[in-house]
């Protein structure tokens, strides 16, 4: 290489780097502030006598890191719920996916002698021991979503219904396709290694069997947009003619929809899972392949906070004849369609 070309190369690359830096500065604004401020819709309001202010209670709250839309909504909803009560002080520990950190958070709550703990463990088994310690120290623990391995580790457990999600999705698809036993049904699962995915898939399979259908094609993604897109692109290639698809998770649903649009397919209808506001808006629009989504409530930690307050104040739950807050509350997995989407939009989460 002659010296003049070397100089030129250097000058060109130098200019390129300078241009790149300039571009970074120009688009440097990484803000996500919308131009027009939208006001958040108010959630469904249910009030009972229990909402009257009672004894001041301190509730410790710990959940995994908000690394996807649903988990983000979990903590946000819990905080919003606590905000409604002037007798509740919610101490929110920083969300973490490190079980060691989460254990130390609970140990901290025990030392602080909080009145109750709401715990959505990153791993139910790993947090069981420290939850037992809290219970032995006389602090009621409300276990949310991922169950402990010991029944003594929690005063009350609030669960979503993964199997029920599958059943709801399957039953809905049965209703839509019931008269056609040859219909092709496909399933886009989340992370296959998780027990919750197995539960959802089993419920789906059982519900379909009930009306003589089966899962003709099944792919697994990873709860991410990119993973949903890739799995769906392959699935659509594999099945040239599909009647119905159930996608386990609305967070990955954005990628699923992108792949469907890419392939230009619309001969089927899609049922979502979890209940994001994106999917609900698709349902509402009426011209999307998304016809329904099955709720996996992102308000369950908020329920945990409400129950923790009642337990700490020695109150009982309304609308039940028996005394005391129940041991287990399993939430319903309703199907959201165009008919009832208005009602559920306020609890849809942003993915």
């Amino acid at each position, binding site marked *: 290489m002659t010296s003049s070309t070397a100089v030129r190369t250097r000058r060109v*690359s130098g200019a390129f780097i300078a241009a790149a830096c300039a571009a970074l500065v120009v688009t440097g604004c990484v803000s996500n502030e919308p131009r027009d401020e939208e006001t958040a819709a108010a959630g469904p309001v249910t009030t009972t006598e229990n909402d009257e202010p009672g004894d001041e209670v301190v509730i410790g709250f710990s959940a995994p890191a908000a*690394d996807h839309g649903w988990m983000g909504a979990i903590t946000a909803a819990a905080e919003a719920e606590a905000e409604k009560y002037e007798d509740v002080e919610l101490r929110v520990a920083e969300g973490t996916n490190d079980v060691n950190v989460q254990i130390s958070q609970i140990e901290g709550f025990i030392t602080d002698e909080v009145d109750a703990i709401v715990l959505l463990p990153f791993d139910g088994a790993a947090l069981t021991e420290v939850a037992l310690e809290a219970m032995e120290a006389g602090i009621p623990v409300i276990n949310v979503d991922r169950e402990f391995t010991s029944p003594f580790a929690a005063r009350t457990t609030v669960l979503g219904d993964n199997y029920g999600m599958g059943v709801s999705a399957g039953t809905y698809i049965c209703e839509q396709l019931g008269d056609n036993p040859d219909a092709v049904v496909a399933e886009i699962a989340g992370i*296959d290694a998780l027990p919750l995915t197995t539960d959802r898939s089993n419920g789906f399979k059982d519900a379909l069997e009930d009306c003589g259908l089966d899962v003709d094609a099944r792919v697994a993604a990873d709860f991410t947009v990119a993973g949903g897109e890739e799995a769906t692109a392959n699935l659509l290639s594999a099945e040239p003619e599909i009647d119905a698809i159930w996608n386990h998770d609305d967070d990955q649903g954005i990628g699923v929809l992108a792949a469907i649009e890419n392939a230009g397919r619309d001969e089927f209808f899609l049922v979502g899972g979890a209940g994001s506001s994106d999917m609900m808006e698709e349902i509402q629009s009426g011209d999307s392949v998304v016809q329904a989504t099955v709720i996996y409530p992102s308000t369950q930690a908020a329920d945990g906070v409400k129950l923790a307050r009642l337990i700490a104040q020695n109150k009982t739950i309304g609308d039940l004849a028996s005394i005391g807050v129940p041991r287990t509350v399993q939430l319903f997995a309703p199907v959201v369609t165009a008919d009832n989407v208005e009602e559920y939009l306020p609890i849809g989460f942003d993915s």
Partner: protein
Amino acid sequence: MSGRSALSGPALRMGGLVLALILLCVVGIATTGGRFASAGNITTILSLAAVTGVVSIGMTFVITAGGIDLSVGSVLGLATVWASTLSTQYMAEDYGWWVMVVTALAVGLAAGLINGALVAYGKVPAFMATLAMLAAAKGLAELIAGRQTQRVEVDPFLDVFRADLLGLPVIVWIFVVVAAAGWFLLNRTTFGRRTVAVGGNPEAARLAGIKIKRHTLYLYGLTGLTAGIGAVMMLARTTAGSSTTGTLLELDVIAAVVVGGTLLAGGRGTITGTVLGVLIFSTLTNVFILNNIDSSVQAIAKGAIIVGAVLLQQWFAAREKSTST
């Protein structure tokens, strides 16, 4: 080795890869018939190969030079996020879709140059420097996006990159162009010869007058740039930017490059091999899904193929040594 020239190392290696790809296609056709060979399915395979492919081209250069870049996946994710923030999208609406492209490329390039500077001038081992970037870029992406998915609403951007050109998706053409440019750069320019020299024998390269530090800086910049290009393609494919996009992509990319025949120790690189490696993995995934096979079985098969390919590579390398003496 005159008597064996027809079976010389590189040709044999390429032959092996082509054979593996053909074998996969035969299995695909045998098990699913016309569904595998349909134009739509071929397009699917190529589109899925495109993003991994573009990043793999950049990675081929770094690995050929004896380095490694573990950060490509999270840099790609960061670039999708940065290029799809509301403020970037508003600018794109006002000035044109290219704003998003420039942002993604600039983010990728900047991250790559930081990697390169750390490795070349800071003397941080490539493994550690890029591992640190992996963590930091992911964190920054989460911070900017607030851990939420950012939908791309700039229609002109989507129209351009989701379109078809001459029967193939635009992103497949981007892969073709990047691969061709990569091949030219590696095989026909001083830059390419220097890259091989740096990886093969850094001391000799230094004595030959190659400015190793500056060259290393450029190499990581190049890989970062390909991650930026991959981000643009990913934004178009998924219509969204997210900090989760690109997670674990580095593993697919490194696997494809190494299976393709580029030496992990440096000194030998092949763009053709990388392209074949990428195609083998995307075809494999596709054949499995066409047959509705469990995702765990897919993962095992992927692992077996990587090990098999590396074992074969070592066998070829040993053979070359024995025939050339």
